[in-house]
């Protein structure tokens, strides 16, 4: 072990996300409700399948975000070697345009009250916030919410790659889930590496990735470099802005706005301790599918006395070490391996983790000849999920289906195990054993995922 650093992380349990977008609204109200960033949502929520915001941001063939591993085993920004980028700073060709986000608009509301007498009811018509002129609304920050228009454009969702044949946009086979996104505050941030001005940095104490507003020169290499498209350009100040993990709140012991206001109660915040010297090696493993394990390996066990000793040597305060020991994100990501990193294949070592959604559907089971009345099948089986597991794997494990399958099985086992307790019956330990856990493990998972008190989420 060489050097321990602390990193704040977040887990979002997609299985609980109701897609309400409260997080987006409270975040926008707090941080980006001002000119220059009208189109900016530090936090947004996408209906998947869908194109996302900005459109098809996951298509790195187009946007060239994140890192790639060279044949020689080195990491290189996908947007090209640094020389290449330095030559392009005045004409960044890989920036999403306003069309890829959306052209923000407002309405001439005032007409409703000030209209002189006219021949019909006054109305507030849409006006572009960019040009100030009349506009017709053709795209927005959340255009394909709840599968709106998805049968027309859903095939453009980059996550359908490889599973195109199994996805049909028909009512009977409809599926969806929501993907809330903020900045990943990566351990290996491509935006930071891409910044020619040295304006982007990770805070030493908690790893939050920030843009130094004084130093930013508006080159926008960070916008291109971020494969999640979570760095934005303020067209009024000419500088980059991004999710700050609400550090002014965090510093006084409050969770982020998006987390505290999440009525689905699906967000957890906590500290990771990690071996900072292992990051690059982990991000450079050959096979994309090994990146998840490599990322887990970087995270240190905060209860390991050696880790604690090294952390102290590296100047991490005892209360931070204690926080890391109680960290729900560590428990969910590493102890129970329920939370997975978003797009590990970008090799940025993202620190916002996701528990994949169950989407059980027993009629598929019943139709396939299973007896759904068997106790074990009351909730359906993982292989009959409505959401194609390949889709989740494309999102969370670089396509590694068995990893996602394992998570979903642990969740399903927890439900089955708890049902016996709920109905006052003897517990069936074989349910826990089948997923390599104990009954106590499942019960602890249940407490953390279901009871989820404020104190245990943050």
């Amino acid at each position, binding site marked *: 072990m060489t050097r321990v650093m602390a990193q704040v992380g977040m887990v979002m349990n997609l299985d609980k996300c*109701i897609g309400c977008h409260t997080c987006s609204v409270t975040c926008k109200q707090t941080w980006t*409700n001002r000119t220059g960033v009208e189109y900016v949502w530090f936090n947004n929520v996408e209906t998947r399948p869908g194109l996302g915001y900005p459109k098809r941001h996951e298509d790195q063939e187009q946007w060239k975000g994140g890192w790639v591993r060279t044949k020689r085993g080195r990491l290189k920004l996908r947007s090209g070697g*640094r020389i290449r980028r330095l030559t392009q700073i005045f004409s960044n060709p890989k920036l999403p345009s306003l069309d890829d986000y959306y052209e923000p608009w407002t309405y001439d509301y005032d007409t*409703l009250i000030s209209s002189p007498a006219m021949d019909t009811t006054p109305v507030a018509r849409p006006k572009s916030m960019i040009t100030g002129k009349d506009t017709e609304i053709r795209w927005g920050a959340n255009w394909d919410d709840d599968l709106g228009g998805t049968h027309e454009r859903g095939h453009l969702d980059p996550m359908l790659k490889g599973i195109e044949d199994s996805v049909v946009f028909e009512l009977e086979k409809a599926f969806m889930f929501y993907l809330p996104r903020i900045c990943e505050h990566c351990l290996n941030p491509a935006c930071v590496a891409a910044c020619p001005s040295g304006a982007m940095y990770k805070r030493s104490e908690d790893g939050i990735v920030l843009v*130094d507003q004084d130093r930013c020169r508006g080159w926008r290499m960070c916008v291109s470099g971020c494969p999640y498209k979570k760095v934005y350009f303020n067209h009024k100040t000419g500088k980059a802005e991004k999710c700050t993990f609400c550090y002014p709140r965090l510093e006084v012991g409050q969770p982020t706005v998006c987390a505290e206001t999440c009525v689905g109660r699906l967000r957890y915040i906590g500290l990771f301790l990690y071996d900072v010297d292992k990051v*690059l090696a982990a991000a450079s493993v050959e096979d994309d599918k090994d990146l998840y394990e490599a990322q887990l390996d970087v995270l240190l066990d905060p209860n390991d006395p050696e880790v604690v000793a090294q952390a102290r040597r590296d100047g991490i305060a005892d209360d931070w070490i204690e926080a890391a020991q109680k960290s729900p994100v560590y428990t969910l990501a590493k102890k129970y391996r329920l939370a997975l990193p978003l797009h590990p294949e970008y090799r940025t070592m993202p620190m916002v983790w996701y528990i994949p959604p169950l989407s059980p559907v027993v009629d598929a089971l019943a139709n396939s000849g299973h007896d759904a009345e068997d106790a074990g099948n009351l909730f359906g089986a993982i292989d009959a999920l409505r959401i194609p597991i390949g889709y989740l794997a494309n999102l969370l494990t670089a396509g590694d289906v068995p990893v996602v399958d394992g998570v979903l099985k642990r969740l399903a086992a927890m439900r089955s195990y708890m049902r016996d307790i709920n109905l006052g019956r003897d517990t069936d330990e074989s349910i826990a054993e089948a997923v390599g856990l104990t009954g106590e493990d499942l019960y602890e998972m249940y407490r953390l995922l279901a009871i989820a008190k*404020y104190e245990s989420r943050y």
Partner: protein
Amino acid sequence: MTETPTRIDDPFVDALISARSFLTRSETSPDHRAVHYVGGREGDVFYRDRWSHDRVVRSTHGVNCTGSCSWKVYVKDGIITWETQQTDYPSVGADSPEYEPRGCPRGAAFSWYTYSPTRVRYPYIRGVLLEMYRAAKVAHGGDPVAAWASIVDDDAKRRTYMSARGKGGLVRASWDEALEMVAAAQVHTIDRWGPDRVAGFSPIPAMSMASHAAGARYTSLIGGTMLSFYDWYCDLPIASPQIWGDQTDVPESADWWNASYLIMWGSNIPTTRTPDAHFMTEARYKGQKVVTVSPDYADNTKFADEWLPAHPGTDGALAMAMGHVILREFYVQRQVPMFVDYSKRYTDLPFLVSLRAHGESFVPDRFVNAADLGQDVEAAEWKPVLIDAATGETVVPDGSIGFRHNESGMGHWNLDLGDVDPLLTMHADGAETVTVDLPRFDAGENGTERGSVIRRGVPVRRMGDRLVTTVYDLLLAQYGVARDGLPGTWGAGYDDADAPYTPAWQEEITSVPAATVERIAREFAQNAEDSGGRSMITLGAGTNHWYHSDTIYRAIISLVLLTGCQGKNGGGWAHYVGQEKARPFTGWAQLAFGADWSRPPRQMAGTSFWYLHTDQWRYDAFGADEVATPLGTGRFTGQAMADTLAQAVRMGWTPSYPTFDRNPITLAADAEAAGMSAPDYVVQELKADRLKFSVEDPDAPENFPRVLTVWRANLLGSSGKGNEYFLHHLLGADGAIDGGQTPEGKRPKTVAWRDEAPTGKLDLLVSLDFRMTSTGLFSDVLLPAATWYEKYDISSTDMHPFIHAFNAAISPPWQCRSDHDVFQKMAAVFTELAGPRLGVVKDVVALPQQHDTPSEISQPGGRVLDWRAGECEPVPGRTMPNLVVVERDYSAIAAKMGALGPNVESIGTVVKGITLRQPKSVEHLKKVNGTVVGGVADGRPRIETAEQVCEAILTLSGVSNGAVAVAGFEFLEKRTGQVLADLARDNEGKHITFADTQSRPQPVITSWEWSGSEHGGRRYSPFTINVERKKPWHTLTGRQHFFLDHDWMAEVGECFPTYRPPLNLAAIAGYPTIGDHDEQQVVVRYLTPHSKWSIHSEYQDNLFMLALSRGGPDIWMSREDAEKIGVRDNDWIEAHNRNGIVVARAVVSHRMPEGTVYMYHAKDRTVGVPRVEKTGKRGGIHNSLTRLLLKPTHLIGGYAQLSYGFNYYGPTGNQRDEVTTIRRRSQEVQY
């Protein structure tokens, strides 16, 4: 670490880039990949500064939304910046998720309104009217009332300002001038037409009780009419009063956590109960199974273990089939002791029903009662009977309504059966059997609604000359559950698709596979057995907003009754549609109804009011007989729906204001002049035909409502079903009605038909709002209201057990005022004008027979006797409306507004049949609020400020004042003879003050005001007190009703749970047929579910919500329907039917089922609505395509639980049976 450091790029580039590290003070990682900074980040000051604020104030959002979420409102430099949710709700226990955070994206976007350009900042009056008024005032020597009279009495002037309504041209006015004009109109109306021509509308008091009470109190004190909202919104599940005698009572959301089986049925929890949805997602982890029933792939389906995609409006068929399976497998094939015991104690299933001969068969007649047994006891006709299985003898059990309202019933109104074991069935070896004819509506003749008849058998006994059986035996016959030895036609089994209510039968109707329904029904019941009744069904607008929602609900609720789940934590129904549980009900009702000064107030069923006064009754295409069964007596033959309303009014079932074609003040004076009591005089005049009910000629000018004040509501942009009829007939503005009026042969017989339908009935429309809505656009006077963040109030809901406060984060900006302050001021201006002109008068108030009062047992046997037809004598309060003379001192209105009146001690507060004199509460209020000095209110507690009103509400209510809770329970203990007061006694000294609610949400005290117990920290579930403490339901039998034996229920064939399909409007009203299409247009079912991006019309104009949705009016349609007419996602379309026309964008999605479109409720015409292609007029709102359809049975009164109560029983403003045509329009739109 032993490996060599990994590097980025190649060595040259690394060297180059590493130079970066020399340019910064900070640490760059050895691989030059990451930069770490510590401290001193001047560049980040911006974000720290943005987060800083001066104050955080607790408030919430009133009305409109049922969430009742407590929020933190942030204030910086005197400006409201944003809001986030409070997280300080008291814990609900170590083993449960908490109520935090509560809130949703809509609420989180509220502060936008504060400074938005849609904010109403000043009083406005339509310019053309204001000019007339100013001129008239000059011409009439400055007399505002005379000036007003001169305008409204002049037809040309009326026409001029009414036709300008909604078309801009508003000008600023001063508060003084605006209030003077409003008061002048009210005074003139009272003087000329009567106080019942002044109306007020404001819904859902629970979420801002003081704001609601302000205007309701004012309206009530001047003798005006307050209009109901719960039934009008079609949020009232009419099955609830029918089954339980209770308006609605449901579990708090934390009780979902206790369920081990949950069906979300037409109830899209994540969208419509956003703050509470987590209890559902989390309960799954506890092993709860989740099933959804929804025609589309709704948001909640994502969480479901199973999805039953029943066709819209066919939910009743699904539920009947589930009931069929449960009865067969858990009652007939095997008896589950818990289910049987529950049925005997808590339902009407063991009660005896007489059979009436019908041709060669029989039909169910009515409950056998003590009078039938020849017993000479008090209220014998109101005491249904059953048979004791042990003795075989008939028994008159305690607990029926015959024990509720008389002295001899003291101590006997309870569900204690003693040693009696009620006999559930007559079925036994050798039992006599007969056939019964039962209506079915799934297979109507010629596509009509009347259905046909099925013949089944029941075991019977003979009692004298009567054939009797039990409700249970009839229920099995109704559900088609066969037993050995019974005659009649029975299905061959679950897979018999021809036999009504089998799983196979429902598959043809709902499309849900029979095997699935069979399995879900079995699981549901098995779970109830395994868990002790913890199977729950949440219900929503998807099942409730139909014309026949009562039948849908009865079929669904039967599932939780048959499985013993109702009245159990974690079980039973959970109806979440427009909840309005004002927990401190007693205090709110006192203040809002002005009952502390004068009683009774005038309150009318909203639907009846709008149906009459917007002339929607003139457009009915089918009559009452259309919904009657062939088994009926033909009593509806030739009757229009309006005829049934007129009959219900004159029989005293349902209220109607204006009541008579004469000013009720004049009527009182006339009676006095004639030397008669008012009731005698009215009866005489009615009999002599010199006096008419207004309902019998609603288009006569003397029967118009004249002044309407709307606050906390958007009647014309949101809730008004038949929006275009409102605009055209009530307001005289442009309306886009495109359908013919009722053809001559189908017109009402007892309601006068005038060839020329009036336009512009309403002299003055006044509204208060903080934002510009359609109601504001069409108002003559628009007053600027304070927002929720600018005033004091209290909020509660049934979703959680807390009461919490609104506080003013800032003072109302510009010229805005709180509702409370507006009505206090209005009262002052009114009193000044009215005192000298009107003085002290007597006012004859007509009242229907009221639920929870002795008048609910005025029409025994559910027999309909119409005095007009000579079937009985007109007796006020029994066979016709009760008539009460109220004295009104119009010079004392302002004084009464601001003080708590003496009735609180002298008569007492009356709620749900419990009367409490509250001198101690009044003494307390005198001390904390101070007292008035001088005048009519001398010495009375002040309620001049909203904070004082809140204090009074909390002091007078049981949920917030332990002493009141205990006193009420003690009252009830005497009546029931059961122990109850212990539920509140440990909180007897607890008194929640307004300050308490300001500091933190306060959990309520268990009170008789509601039916569940929170005692000992348990979660609220309705009717747990009934089940655990043997307190009867407020019904005929005192039990939960499967059987409703009223004449009109029998006439429409709904004595038992049944399935009635959505109205076939194509067949009965000449509408186009769903599915018909050509290349231009397609005919589809038109539904208006609740939106993800608004709470009704609020927030749909909010910039944040518009940014996250499609930015304007939209209609969701299936890809199949869209393809038929060449519509692509986001194309402009027009939806058109006989009621109006809507211009919207299409949202095309495979989530939608073919044949159905959604226009999410509620899209106002204010934002982004283009003009209609053909007419050039503004496109309509979602309710431009709807129209009221009255169901006669919702008008029944005078019969136990089927009696009128404000927001308790009344015709629903249903709208889901509607169809529309969709066409692609020119993509060039004009605004």
